[in-house]
């Protein structure tokens, strides 16, 4: 439906209205605060609870993970692949720990499910990689963005 806005004769001439509009843009140009974040130098600050890149927490250089398989079970995107193994002292540990980040939906349920506080999500949000073999155990064990 075509709605006719009620305008008086002066508004129909547009001139005053255009000058008002020009004043608004000029005011923004001279006194407006720019909101641009100059990316490589400045970064957006996310909340401490932001769920970004994964990492595995380690204690005394040994990963906390015991390959209990709770996180691949709970994962709705089925993107965690763990192969369990045994250490000489009979302790279970993950031989392979891979995350398919392309499938991950960053819901954080793995972090919630983990009884050993091993898998965690940091607040790193720049996750592009140049090779497919990223996000294996070695990569995840690097303590990036530890919180």
């Amino acid at each position, binding site marked *: 439906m075509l709605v006719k806005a009620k305008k008086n004769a002066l508004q129909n001439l547009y*001139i005053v209205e*255009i000058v008002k*509009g*020009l004043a*608004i*843009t*000029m005011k*923004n*140009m001279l006194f*407006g*605060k*720019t*909101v*641009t974040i*100059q990316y490589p130098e400045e970064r957006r600050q996310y909340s401490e609870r932001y769920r970004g890149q994964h990492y595995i927490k380690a204690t005394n250089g040994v990963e906390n993970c015991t390959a209990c398989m709770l996180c691949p079970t709970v994962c709705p995107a089925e993107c965690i692949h763990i192969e369990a193994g045994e250490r000489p002292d009979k302790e279970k540990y993950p031989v392979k720990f891979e995350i398919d980040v392309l499938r991950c939906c960053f819901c954080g349920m793995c972090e919630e499910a983990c009884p050993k506080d091993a898998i965690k999500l940091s607040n790193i949000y720049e996750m592009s990689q140049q090779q497919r073999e990223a996000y294996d155990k070695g990569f995840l064990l690097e303590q990036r963005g530890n919180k």
Partner: protein
Amino acid sequence: MDSAMFWIPAIAKVALVAIVLLQVVPVMIWVERRGSALMQNRLGPNRVGPLGLLQSAVDAIKMIFKEDFVPAHVMPFYFLLAPVAAVIPAFMSFAVIPFASQIELNGQIIQFQIADLNVGLLYILSITSIGVYAIIMAGWASNNKYALLGSLRSSSQMISYELSMGLSLIGIVMVFSSVKLGDIARAQGETLIQLGSLSLPKWGIFVQPVGFLIFLTSTYAETNRLPFDLPEGESEIVAGYHLEYGAMKFALFMLAEYINMTTASAMCATLYFGGWQLLPGMSWILGQLPLDGMASEWARVAFEAASFTIKVGFFLWLFVWVRWTLPRFRYDQLMDLGWKFMLPLSILNIFVTAFMIYRGVI
């Protein structure tokens, strides 16, 4: 000797105007990008060179090195001719604009104007209307529905607004009794009203305020700038007439658009704001300079050129300012404004001007 005295200043003037016009384009593109960004609380391109000033130069280099691609479905001859046909009239129309008054060198008077044609105003109107051929050619040769729609919109818009543009200029021609731009600019140095020590110059804006508004609006439509940029209309017809163009061919259309803007601004300045007539206060500064003889003459010319540049610069800025303030008109609104409002108003303006000249008011 005589031919040298004719050719050397002529070639120098042509070279000066062409080079300055070419330099206006990258600067204006930078102004447009930074200006729009600041108006929208952004920063705009600020990485290349100081304040991002070299961005346009880098863009031009990129445009040159891009592949010169011609799509398979176009008519190649007209497709390649169209950008050239857009640029040449854009450059040509600046030829009759006076950018300073005159100077006497070796007993010869040199006008700072490439050609002081005795049909100056009509020359500009006719040359600028050639520009529409390029747009139609581009749209038609592109063999693309959107491009053709854009060029059709452009042609009907230009025809509609050329009428009120021409009629609004008749008022100026009546007041100054000349179509020579040099004469019009010179006549605007006269005093219109004397109030004590303050004198109001006989600038076009003071004798033809309505004509100025009509002319200004029409130039926006003629140069296809917002709020009348329906030939481009990104949200409806992708990019309009230059949809199929890329690389330097596209850059030529941009070049033509910005040079047309410059010419339109120069027309506004020359016809309605006294052209090269000095701005208030500049003649006082000129009087204070300790110069004599030839040096003072050249200083006067420099001040006149600077005053003209400031006026043109203001109108160029107004183009950018209006573009980032007003939204685009709908097509029926555009035609309504052109035919139902501006055309009758410009005819009325002619009658009122004629009456006032008859009564001796102006």
